[in-house]
C-alpha cells in the first residue's frame, strides 16, 4: 500500500474543502482499502467522514430518507425500511456478507468500483485504471461482464445491488459540495463508459453524498429483488432484477423495473414498464415485455448466456412481485 495520511475533519466544510483539493473520503473502507492494498487506488490523503452527521434513517411523509453513512446492515434491518421499502432491504441483504454489511455505508456502496478482474491486475490493459491502455476484458475472460451500455473502451458491470433497487424506485440523492447542495436522481449518478471509462460518476470535485431519498407509494410494498449468481449467497450478480408492481382490478397500474449484472450502470427498463402497464399480470405479458430488456444488447464471447438469462430473470421477478400480497 502506498503511504497516505488520515485526517478526521472537524466539520463537513473541512471535509469538503479537503476533498475539493484532492483528498479522498473514506467511510467503511471496504472498497477503498481493498483497492489501495492492490495499489489500484493510491490516494495520498484520506478523510475519515464517519464523525459527520449523515447517518440514520427517517421517514418524511411518504419518503424514506437514508443517511449516506448508514450501514447496509442497519438499513436492511430497519423496521421502517422493511415495511415501506422491502425492495431496499432485500437488495441489501442479497449483497456482500454480514461482516461487510456491518461496515459498508450506503454512500460508499453507490460509489464502489467495478469488480472486473483486469481492473485489479496492474499488468493488464485497463482503460478505467490507466486511460488509453486498452481493455483486457474484451478479448479476455468476460462471462461476468456487461451486455448493455458497453463501449469499445470498457465492458465492466456496475456491481452494486442496492443501486438497482434505488434506480427502480426513482430515488434521489442529496449531495453537498464547495458550491452548496444539490439533489438529483440516483440514476444520474452513474455515467456510461463511452470513451472515458475512468470517469464513473457525475459528482463534482469535493462533493459528498449526504442522503438518499426514496419516494413511497402503493407499488413499493409489492416489490422483489431477484439475484441470480454462481452460488446461492455471497457473490455478485450475473443478472439481478428489482421490480415493484401495483395491480388493481386485475390490471397492472404501475410497474418499476431495473436490472443489475448486465449493464455498465444500474439499468432501468422503461420500455418494459410501458409495455406492461394496462396488461393483465400474466406470464405471456411478462415474457413479451421482458424481451424488450435485451434491446441493444452486445454480448461478448463468454457472456452470451446473459441474453437469455436476463429476460428470464425479469419474468421470474415480475412473477415474484405479483405474488407479494
Amino acid at each position, binding site marked *: 500500500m502506498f*503511504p497516505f*495520511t*488520515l485526517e478526521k475533519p472537524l466539520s463537513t466544510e473541512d471535509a469538503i474543502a479537503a476533498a475539493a483539493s484532492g483528498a479522498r473520503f*473514506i467511510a467503511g*473502507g471496504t472498497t477503498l482499502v481493498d483497492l489501495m492494498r492492490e495499489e489500484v487506488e493510491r490516494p495520498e490523503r484520506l478523510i475519515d467522514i464517519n464523525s459527520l452527521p449523515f447517518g440514520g434513517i427517517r421517514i418524511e411523509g411518504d419518503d424514506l430518507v437514508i443517511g449516506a453513512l448508514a450501514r447496509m446492515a442497519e438499513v436492511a434491518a430497519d423496521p421502517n425500511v422493511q415495511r415501506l421499502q422491502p425492495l431496499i432491504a432485500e437488495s441489501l441483504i442479497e449483497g456482500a*456478507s*454480514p*461482516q461487510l454489511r456491518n461496515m459498508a455505508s450506503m454512500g460508499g456502496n453507490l460509489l464502489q468500483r467495478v469488480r472486473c478482474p483486469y481492473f485489479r491486475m496492474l499488468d493488464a490493459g485497463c482503460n478505467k485504471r490507466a486511460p488509453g491502455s486498452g481493455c483486457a476484458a474484451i478479448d479476455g475472460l468476460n462471462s461476468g461482464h456487461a451486455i448493455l451500455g458497453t463501449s469499445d473502451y470498457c465492458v465492466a458491470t456496475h456491481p452494486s445491488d442496492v443501486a438497482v433497487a434505488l434506480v427502480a424506485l426513482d430515488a434521489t440523492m442529496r449531495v453537498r459540495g464547495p458550491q452548496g447542495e444539490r439533489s438529483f436522481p440516483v440514476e444520474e449518478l452513474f455515467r456510461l463508459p463511452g470513451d472515458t471509462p475512468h470517469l464513473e460518476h457525475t459528482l463534482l470535485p469535493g462533493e459528498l453524498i449526504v442522503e438518499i431519498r426514496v419516494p413511497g407509494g402503493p407499488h413499493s410494498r409489492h416489490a422483489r429483488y431477484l439475484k441470480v449468481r454462481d452460488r446461492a*449467497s*455471497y457473490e455478485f450478480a450475473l443478472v439481478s432484477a428489482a421490480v415493484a408492481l401495483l395491480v388493481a382490478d386485475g390490471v397492472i397500474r404501475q410497474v418499476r423495473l431495473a436490472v443489475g449484472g448486465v449493464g455498465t450502470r444500474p439499468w432501468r427498463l422503461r420500455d418494459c414498464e410501458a409495455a406492461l402497464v394496462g396488461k393483465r399480470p400474466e406470464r405471456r405479458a411478462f415474457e413479451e415485455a421482458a424481451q424488450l430488456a435485451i434491446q441493444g444488447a452486445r454480448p461478448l464471447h463468454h457472456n452470451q448466456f446473459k441474453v437469455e438469462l436476463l429476460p428470464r430473470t425479469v419474468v421470474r421477478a415480475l412473477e415474484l412481485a405479483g405474488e407479494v400480497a
Partner: protein
Amino acid sequence: MAENPSALHLSGPRISRREALQATAAAAALAALPPGSAAATNAPAAAAVTLTLTVNGRGHTLTVDPRQSVLDVLRETLDLTGTKKGCNQGACGACTVLVNGKRIVSCLTLASMYDGARIETIEGVEKDGALHPLQEAFVEHDGLQCGFCTPGQIMSGLGCIAEGHAGSPEEIQFWMSGNICRCGAYPGIVAAVADAAGRS
C-alpha cells in the same frame, strides 16, 4: 468457477508471497518503534497515529502506521495470532472479529480509524478456562478439519446468534456465508451454530 472472472475476486489467490513478507516486515519494524516515533523505514511518508483500543477487555495505547489494518495490529503488534489472515481482501471471513459488538472483517479495517474501539477476538471467547458453548459445539459437531477458518467462524457465529439469524439451517447457511471453509466443514459448522443458538 475459477474460469469466471466475476468469481475471481472472491476465490483467486490475491496476495503474493512478496507482498505478504513486505507487509509482515513493515509491521514488525513498526511494532519495534517506541510510541510516538516516526513511521518505519520502509514506510516513508506515512505519519504514525496514536490510538487506544480495548481488546478482550484490556486497554492498549498503540502507535500505528495508517496503513495497518486491525488484523495486522492484532497479529503483529499485540501478538494475538488467533485471528487469521486468509485472503486479506474481505472475501473469506478468516479475520472476523467483533468491533463494538458487531462482526466485521478486520483485514479491511484501518486501525487508525478505530480509535477507542472495543474489540473481541477468539482469544477472549474462552472464560476462566472454560470453553464458550459455541466452541464446545464446534468440538462436538466436528465443525472443523484443519482449523484455519475456525476462529473466524466462531466470531462470526457469535455475531450470527446475537443478531437472531440462527433460526434454521438455511438461515444459518445464509448468514454465515461470509466465512469460507477450505476443508468443507460446513455441515458441522451449521450444526454447531444451530446447537449453540438453541442452548443460549
